[in-house]
């Protein structure tokens, strides 16, 4: 259904108490994501990207402002939103296939159907041969791929990804980026991707949200036109990359551009 997966974030504030001091992790976040849209979020470490995803997925409901999914206020996690955490968070006592199958525990599909889905998704992330392995037997990048399979397996309306490819080698990363893009496009999934990799953000995103820290806020939102996003070698791609980097630098505490912000 094409109209599923409208995400609206309105004037959201999130504060933490750390050692008696108040940290403003998110400050006045406004963002609308259309169904099927792919939004990349970039920003310096600690600017609240993970926090934002946790709010969207419903793990943390203690915030000010509104987060609406298809016009309704969120009341906690549901299966139509999936997340790939920054760390893989596999259950160490379950084999790889059972970890992926966790995503289908609540689904009403018949068992053979579920098994087939698990197998397909393991294949998708290139881990069919490791279906029977325990997480401790996998490398970091392999674990992360299992986590991606677990998130995708029940075809969520909204997919949230927190630096999912950070631990991967360049080839696997490029392959999974392409696969992710294909799946998300063909299924019409709404996606929000947090990444430190600006090229990844451009390649996958329809829009790029640049965040600045302290307090965590949106500095600018840059559209990616279809043509420049496709071709990493094009000059428009390179130009956009420069723009994003400049935008990032302006908010980076370690860079001189800070004064400009």
């Amino acid at each position, binding site marked *: 259904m094409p109209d599923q997966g409208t995400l609206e974030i309105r004037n959201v504030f999130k504060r933490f108490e750390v050692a008696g001091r108040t940290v403003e992790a998110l400050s006045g976040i406004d963002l609308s994501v259309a169904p099927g849209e792919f939004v990349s979020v970039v920003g310096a470490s600690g600017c609240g990207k993970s926090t934002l995803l946790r709010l969207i997925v419903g793990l943390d409901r203690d915030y000010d402002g509104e987060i609406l999914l298809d016009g309704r206020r969120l009341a906690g996690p549901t299966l139509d939103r999936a997340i790939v955490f920054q760390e893989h*968070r596999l*259950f160490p*006592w379950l084999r790889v296939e059972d970890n992926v199958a966790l995503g289908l525990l609540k689904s009403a599909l018949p068992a053979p159907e579920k098994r087939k889905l698990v197998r397909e998704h393991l294949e998708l992330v290139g881990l069919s041969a490791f279906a029977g392995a325990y997480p401790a037997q996998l490398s970091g990048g392999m674990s992360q791929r299992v986590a991606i399979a677990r998130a995708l397996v029940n075809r969520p309306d909204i997919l949230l990804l927190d630096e999912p490819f950070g631990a991967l080698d360049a080839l696997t990363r490029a392959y999974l980026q392409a696969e992710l893009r294909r799946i998300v496009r063909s299924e019409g999934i709404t996606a929000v991707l947090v990444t430190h990799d600006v090229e990844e953000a451009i390649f996958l995103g329809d829009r790029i949200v640049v965040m600045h820290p302290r307090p965590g806020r949106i500095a600018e939102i840059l559209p990616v036109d279809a043509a420049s996003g496709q071709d990493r070698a094009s000059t428009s791609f390179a130009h956009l990359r420069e723009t994003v980097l400049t935008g990032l630098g302006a908010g980076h505490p370690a860079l001189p551009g800070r004064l400009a912000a």
Partner: protein
Amino acid sequence: MSAVTIIPPAGEAAATTEPKRRWNGLILPAVLILLWEGASQSGLVDDRLLPSLGTVAGRGWSELADGRLAVDIASSLARDVSGFAIGSALGIPVGLALGLSRTLDRFVGPTFNAAKQIAVFAWIPLISVWFGVGEAAKIAFIALAAFTPVVVNTWAGARSVPRTLGEVADVLALSRWQRLTRLEIPSALPSIFVGLQLGLIYSWLATVGAEYFMTIGPGIGGLMTEGREHFHMDLVILGVLLLGGIGLGLNKLAALMETSALRWKRY
């Protein structure tokens, strides 16, 4: 999971696996046995105080032959296992409940922690009033001895389910039951096994205690009490050897069960 992990012997300790060195451990017992044998053979020490190995072995054989020893061992083991089974069957759910429910932890936890301070043997007089001095009382006491460590460790394990994995369960919208079986129990399992192993050690200790204090019916404790009353040192030593051997066997069995249940931890 950091709550319970085996820290393997570090440094030089790891090198002790050389097969030749293992035999070194037998030297000291062998020397002691030789001294013992020499002392009792030469008549330096009263044979009644320190019977020779042969005497102990002979006693073991004759007890075995008239069938009494088998009855004693079987009775003690049956008691131990039934008490342990009851104690842990109650202890695991109670520990899980305490560890998973914030309310129970707050309201009942402190009471349990206070009650467990009563040294377990102090319950014997009360239990013997409530249950008599027959089999029921013994098993009740053994169950109580196993119950406490099982609860304590299950509780600790259930409480330390990693929050990050709890969030995965939230996001996957697992039902209460799925959460329990897929996340909480497996995560607490290593700790539960520590509790079970401690429970096994304590219930064996309690079996001996129960048989000393409530001296009705066959059992290794009874055998030793009799040996002491009639000054049969060989019988007492036989009892000590049996207690150690069976205790060791039970522990090995528990460890075996643990390794097969916690396969995922091996990697």
